């Protein structure tokens, strides 16, 4: 069983080294762990620092957004013949120990995709993020008719079937909602597992803001209306 850990990164020189160093080296039921960093056109030393810590670093020639970087990561994972793909953020907000929790339903063949949800244990989460996340969950449900408690979570696990069936058009953060839409479209089995979120001053600055929410909404509607025709 081969596990690919896809980490989209844009200007994450401050954290990418530690994120990669802290990844698990061994996991039950997994023979090989392959971290794949997709450097989304960073202007700092993200690429060099990632390259020091993992073999697979892919560079985007221009910055497109986390959606495009995740798409590249999925494509790379498929080419490397991975059986499970995990996505996680490069800002250090995810606890690498949660990887074994979110891949378990896939190893047990109880889910095609697992969402690591931050909303079931919201202690420490800034109130603005809680409101923002519920708002995005609601919007995602309105557009794609699939409910999740954390539609915007960056930590997910997918099996080979999910990775093969899903197609994406997103460039930015709307990929999180598009993934939920793809779960519905392809009738995939989804599970949610609570994960820990490490909120540092750095990780609080990173991620989505309120203004981006409106942009994500417009993009989601466009994807819903035009996505599959393009």
């Amino acid at each position, binding site marked *: 069983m081969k596990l690919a850990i896809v980490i989209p990164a844009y200007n994450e020189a401050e954290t990418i080294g530690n994120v990669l160093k802290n990844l698990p080296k061994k996991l039950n039921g997994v023979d090989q762990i392959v971290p794949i960093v997709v450097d989304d056109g960073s202007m700092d030393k993200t690429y060099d620092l990632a390259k020091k810590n993992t073999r697979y670093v892919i560079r985007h*020639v221009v910055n497109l957004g986390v959606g495009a970087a995740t798409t590249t990561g999925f494509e*790379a994972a498929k080419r490397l013949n991975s059986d499970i793909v995990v996505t996680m953020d490069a800002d250090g907000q995810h606890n690498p120990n949660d990887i074994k929790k979110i891949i378990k339903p896939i190893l047990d063949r109880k889910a095609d995709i697992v969402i690591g949800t931050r909303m079931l244990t919201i202690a420490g989460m800034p109130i603005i993020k809680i409101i923002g996340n519920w708002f995005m969950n609601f919007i995602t449900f309105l557009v794609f008719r699939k409910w999740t408690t954390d539609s915007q979570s960056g930590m997910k696990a997918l099996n080979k079937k999910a990775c093969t069936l899903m197609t994406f058009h997103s460039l930015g953060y709307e990929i999180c909602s598009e993934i939920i839409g793809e779960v519905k479209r392809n009738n995939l089995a989804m599970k949610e597992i609570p994960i820990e979120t490490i909120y540092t001053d750095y990780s609080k600055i990173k991620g989505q803001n309120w203004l981006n929410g409106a942009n994500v909404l417009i993009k989601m509607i466009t994807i819903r209306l035009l996505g599959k025709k393009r």
Partner: protein
Amino acid sequence: MIINILVKVFSIILGLTVLIKTYHDFKKHRENLVMFLFWMVAWSLIIVATLFPSTVTLLIERISGKGVGIGTFIGVAFIFVFFVTYRIYIKANRLEQKIKDIVVKIGLKDLDNI
């Protein structure tokens, strides 16, 4: 009265900003001569229309007769602007998608070299 003045000031600032930007782009060879002239004339007319709105009413009456009011004209203009915005949005989306496909393809070439 105050709103009238504010609308005029806002329109002039917006119009002049576009004119300066277009001129700047043309000087740096980012804009071709035809498009430069088109934007210069179009935005100059917008500024003139903002400063002398009565000329627009007169012009509409001359062109279409007394039957068509300024309201109808503005309504048609709104529909036109929204249609153009929609077309630009769709085109921008398709272009974004094509750029994404290219960047992903180039990125994945790194994988072949590992």
